[in-house]
């Protein structure tokens, strides 16, 4: 056959194929796995690029809100806009272009915003090309894809303009922490003695909290190394648990380590291990919960928006306390006073001790998830499998958050006071968020799309 005949045949078959799929693609792009894949990709890039826990919570937040706000435009009966609920976010208006599919636009807005915050753009580009191909394979017409992406990009620009006002860029050049001699103040810790991370994070604009110090925890115990003082008892507890740790405690500590960057030294040779952040772990649990609850595209998008808001505000609240109280890490004191070779099970992260970040953010996230999926939502936590850790099972989100909190004591990086007060702080932040952020308004889900 000659070439032009072959070409025509190809064209014909392609046209036929697209005609045949013309109506079915709409169902296919309601698949919540599209949302899950987006979030998973962002998590992978966050791990690769290495972000500190508070900064990572910001990288999750804005894409999740972009996705939610886009989705919400097509589902106004069931979901309320976050504009007016989170600080400074202006409302969006629906596109005039009828070709816009809001699910596709939502996915695209998520990735476009994410790309602005991560560093390895080539990885994001590759993911987006792959997503576009998938959408085409599902039969999304070129015009729909084009219009949806265009609108998604507009939303992304809207969200990025809003994000610009959160004082992140300005805080990059705020003064570093000046090390203070007195023993009760935080000091950099082995093995790398890294500078303290984000001493001005409390100046970042909150989402739903009135201010970073809206829920101040009780003050830490008075520094006192006298045998039998309340502080000394807690210090000794960290030391003793470290020395006599049980297999169960060890497993819990490692499971909730969630340290994005741990260096290992062998003489001059070094290597680093990278993992998800504490926030990333709760993003993972959100993924597990939405899948288990068989949440649809919208509900999945909604869950991520709510959890990322809770995590974001919880980090700000916690960091405010950390850099106000400047409590010294147990490793510093134990090495100096009890045992110079004592090493915590986990590498001490580079910021002050009080309160425990994992305790605050885990409780806030757990309360949000409980609000979405109910009490006693049992689940198997498979988040850490790909980082070589086992599966752990919980009867509820709260139970998981309790374990995450106490894991820091087993890990040798926190006193009990930072855990107990951190949980209390997270409880207040979480309750405040679920009260203030009202997204799902309970409309008819069946009508949500189309």
């Amino acid at each position: 056959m000659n070439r032009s005949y072959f070409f025509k045949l190809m064209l014909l078959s392609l046209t036929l194929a697209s005609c045949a799929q013309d109506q079915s693609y709409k169902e296919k792009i309601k698949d919540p796995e599209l949302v899950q894949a987006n979030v998973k990709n962002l998590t992978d890039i966050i791990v690769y690029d290495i972000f500190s826990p508070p900064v990572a919570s910001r990288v999750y937040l804005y894409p999740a809100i972009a996705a939610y706000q886009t989705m919400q435009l097509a589902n106004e009966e069931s979901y309320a806009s976050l504009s007016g609920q989170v600080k400074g976010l202006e409302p969006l208006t629906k596109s005039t272009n009828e070709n816009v599919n809001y699910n596709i636009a939502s996915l695209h807005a998520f990735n476009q915003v994410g790309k602005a915050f991560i560093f390895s753009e080539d990885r994001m580009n590759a993911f987006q090309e792959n997503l576009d191909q998938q959408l085409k394979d599902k039969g999304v017409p070129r015009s729909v894809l084009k219009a949806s992406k265009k609108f998604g990009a507009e939303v992304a620009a809207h969200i990025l303009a809003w994000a610009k006002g959160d004082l992140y860029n300005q805080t990059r050049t705020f003064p570093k922490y000046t090390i203070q001699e007195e023993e009760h103040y935080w000091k950099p810790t082995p093995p790398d003695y890294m500078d303290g991370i984000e001493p001005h994070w409390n100046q970042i604009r909150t989402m739903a909290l009135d201010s970073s110090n809206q829920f101040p925890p009780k003050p830490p115990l008075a520094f006192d190394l006298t045998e039998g003082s309340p502080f000394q008892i807690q210090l000794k507890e960290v030391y003793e648990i470290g020395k006599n740790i049980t297999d169960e405690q060890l497993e819990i500590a490692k499971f909730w380590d969630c340290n994005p960057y741990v260096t290992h030294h062998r003489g001059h040779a070094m290597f680093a291990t990278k993992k998800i952040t504490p926030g990333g772990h709760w993003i993972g649990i959100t993924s597990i919960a939405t899948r288990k609850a068989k949440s649809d595209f919208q509900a999945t998008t909604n869950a991520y928006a709510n959890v990322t808001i809770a995590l974001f505000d919880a980090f700000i609240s916690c960091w405010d306390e950390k850099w106000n109280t400047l409590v010294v890490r147990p490793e510093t004191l134990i090495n100096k006073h009890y045992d110079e070779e004592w090493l915590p099970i986990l590498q001490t992260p580079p910021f002050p001790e009080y309160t425990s970040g994992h305790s605050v953010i885990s409780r806030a996230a757990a309360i949000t998830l409980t609000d979405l999926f109910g009490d006693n939502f049992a689940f198997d936590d498979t988040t850490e499998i790909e980082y070589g850790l086992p599966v752990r099972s919980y009867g509820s989100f709260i139970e998981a958050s309790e374990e995450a909190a106490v894991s820091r004591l087993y890990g040798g990086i926190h006193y009990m006071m930072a855990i107990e007060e951190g949980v209390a702080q997270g409880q207040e932040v979480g309750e405040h968020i679920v009260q203030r952020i009202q997204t799902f308004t309970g409309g008819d889900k069946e009508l949500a799309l189309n």
Partner: protein
Amino acid sequence: MRCFIVSLLLLFCIGCTSNSGALFIKKTSDHTGIGFINKLTYTEEFNPYTYRNFYNGAGVAVGDINNDGLLDLFFTGNIVGNKLYLNQGNFKFKDITVSAGVGCEEVWSSGSTFVDLNHDGFLDLYVCKSGKPGGAQRNNELFINNGDLTFTESSKAYGLDIIGLSVQAAFFDADRDGDLDCYLLNNSIRSVGGYDLIKDQRTIPDANNNGNKFLINDNGVFKDNSAEANIYSSAIGFGLGITLSDFNNDTWPDLFISNDFFERDYYYLNNQKGGFTEQVEEHFTALSKGSMGADAADLDNDLRSDLIVTEMLPVSLKRKKTKAIYDSWDKYQLQINNGYYHQFPRNVLQRNTEAGFFEISRMSDLAATEWSWASLIFDMDNDGLKDVFISNGIYKDLLDRDYLNHMANEESVRMMIKNDDQVIKNLIDIMPSQAVANKAFKNEGDFRFTDMESAWGFDEPTFSNGSAYADLDNDGDLDLIINNVNIPAFVYENTLDTLAHRSLQVQFKSTTQNTSLIGTKIIAYTQSRSPLVAEHFPSKGFQSSVPHRVHLGIGNQKRIDSLQVIWPDGTVETFFDLASNKLQTLSPSENRGVYQPVSSAKEKLVFVQTKAFAYKHNENNYVDFNRERLIPQMNSNLGPALAVADINNDGIDDVFIGGAKNQTAVLQLSNSDGGYDVVSVPFEKTKRSEVVDAAFFDPDNDGDLDLILAHGGRAFSKFSPLLDDAFYENIDGQFYHRKGVIPSTRSISTGAVATQDFNLDGYDDIFIGEQFKEMIYGTLGDGFLFQSNGKGTFIEVPQPAFKNLGIITDAQWMDYNGDEWPDLVVVGEWMSIRVFLNFKGIFSEVKPKGLEKTRGLWNVLEIADVDGDGKKDLIAGNIGENNFFEEGMKMFVSDFDSNGSVEQIICFKRGEAYVPVLDKDELIAQIPALKKNMVYYEDYGKRSISEILGEARINSALQMEIDSRKTTVFLRKDEGFEAIAIPLEAQYSSVYAIQVSDVNEDGAADVLFGGNQYNVKPQFGRHDASSGLLVLGSLNKGMLEFKKKIFLNVKGQIRAIKSLKNINKQLYIFAKNNEEIEFYEKID
């Protein structure tokens, strides 16, 4: 005769492979018969992660085992066995390892040394063992030479069968009892990390007895005497080099131990009682951090032993940015506070002087030579100046930062969290590997060196470790033998024309137990050059040892007039009229005398410390880097300021000393006893400010002197009223603070004050130079002129010429054009020396001849007529040449990311491009968005600042440049100025204080220089190679020369030096930052 024939043969270049024309020619293994390769293969169980020193490689020992006059070679092998090669002449060698029985198969050998321990005249061989525990003959082995090319292992009988991680041993007679003792460099098995900043670890002996050892020879049996001899044997001594020398010229052998990782080096001075005193902190100001091998020898022929210790700093900026990790300021402080002293990531070249060691590797351009294993100091071209060879290369780039952050982080590392041991090999497989060339530096004199690269034949990329020099063909020059990882060992022939470039080689014979007289020092005197010194200590460099001979290049001298030999027992003997180019064999005779040390100081010390009054400056704790994280060094330690004048008219000078922030300034008023009374109460009013300059002057023309205090520094907000300069009025000898008499429209962080009656109205006026406009480093400060109205207040006289001058640090008045109207000279950082002519009260800038290329980092300016021609000259203190700055560097200043804070990005010039000096992490922390285009260190390493920030943003930035780093004396000529040469020692550190005075009263002006800046980020290293310098002027046919210098002994950061008239004597006051003030007086 042999050498002559060999030289002739050389013309035909037998056996040479490459690089014909180069000084050193590598011999092929086909020619030499040496096929040894230190082949290293890692496995899952045994690799650089499981064994710290996996890629340290092995060494070379050279010695004549059969006394045939030809030096034989022993190569150690790590995983492979050792090899012993018998020298058969003409660079032909025969492998006799098996028959000799010294292979040590299946066990990791490290350093080795030939030494005659049974004093039978045949060299025995001691081999150190390391690597994994277990296996046969894991202990260090002593092979006793049977005299027939076979050996008998006898380590147990001698007490030398030590098991551990041994690196090298050195045998020498430490206690002068005639036999050889031993220092064994042994590393603890303890892993590095985690506990590295714990205090007081040094003094605790390793629990498993695996630390360093000092062994004394007790009738042929070696016994551990470490504790008694004060030798550290802790678990943190990760020593890689033993360097023996008589560092303090008392004829007793001293020790320098270079320690890898966090532990600082040890400097053991022989206490002459069988032990040592460790004094590294007393004699050195800066050490290398990951210290490797080292060598000591006299580099400037002043008869003092200088020292070069190697480290791992890469040469190129790209490799610096991708393969080096630097300590943060906070971690560096923690190291100092916990007893680990000042260690920096670079090689060090320690110049040995009467005032201690000065670390001048940066000036000498030896600071960065890649991952270096050892220095060897020997005269490669027989010109009388010893040259430097450095072996380089690590088979795997263990510190590659992209590998660390990204490559080693994929699936394999995730798996490692589950199981630490299953994937290490895969990890190492992907670790980058890049061979680099060894380095040879020709000594040009005055501690200047030229990297000879291909001219001397060392341009081949390699992974070289231990190396040794030896005259293998007895032609009078030193050849070089190098052990490599996974590359055949190198044998380089030195092809020098030894008829024109001659040498003296000496071996020593004795009937004592120290048969080759290890520890002997020779000093050779010839007609045409200063005496040359060499010492006989075979173990040196890295895991290696050189022959039992010493070598001195002597140029074209045919004979040595006299050779002074200081024997190991401390006696001295002189031999006369020795032929060169011939191996001399000398033995002690009955004609030995007692050695009288000769002072090598060319000028005797002129100063002794004295007392006048006490004052301790207390610098406030402020870290500039926490506010401006891109600047390389701080500027918050600029005080104390001094002002000297006779306030109470008693003929004795009084002294004002300014305090740091929160410290009250004081006036020391002389009393009738020749002592001083403190006046401080008036100055409490302004104690919360920082005084950076001060001057006595008479603005009200009432005959007494009033006082102006320049307030500046960094630890203030840009709006702080504490920055306002203070005027103190003198009323009947009492000082009163007059607030508000100097008008101010904004706060000025002052860098300089200069007083003068600029308008010739009889009232002294004030010039104020601004240093940090809006408290930002790099903005252009203004100059301000305040005219006295004669009644105690001042008005500002606007001078457009003084706008946007720069980072002003000093200003002085002089009548440049001789019109009686005082003109002004202003200096500062990143600015040229600027001269402003005073046209009846209006200033305009002139560009005098001789000051064209003077953009520098000036700290201080002094004006005096040094050459006595009646015209005032300029003496300007710059940053000097011993630092990381370079001429041609630029600083770009702008708010590059428009977030409201200004960035200062200092760049090296490379070709036409400007490349940031910053570490990537520092820049990214300041401007995170830049990481987008530079995820990898590799991306950053290759980019210029224009590529990083974009041409447009760079072009719109404020740009400043450096033309000169040198502290300079500019003589005023009929037209403009002319720089005059001063000793290079003035460039060893940054100069912050200058005083001109004819100290030695010879009629020619002398200049005192003082300085140092300690608050520099560790990757650049502090400026600390000065303890005050006196440069002596002399008149040569009426022309002033600055040829002589005397090192003073004023340790610390000198900020002001003033000459001070006391009763019948002249005192010199040295004001140091954060330390007690010191006084000196001249002695005759």
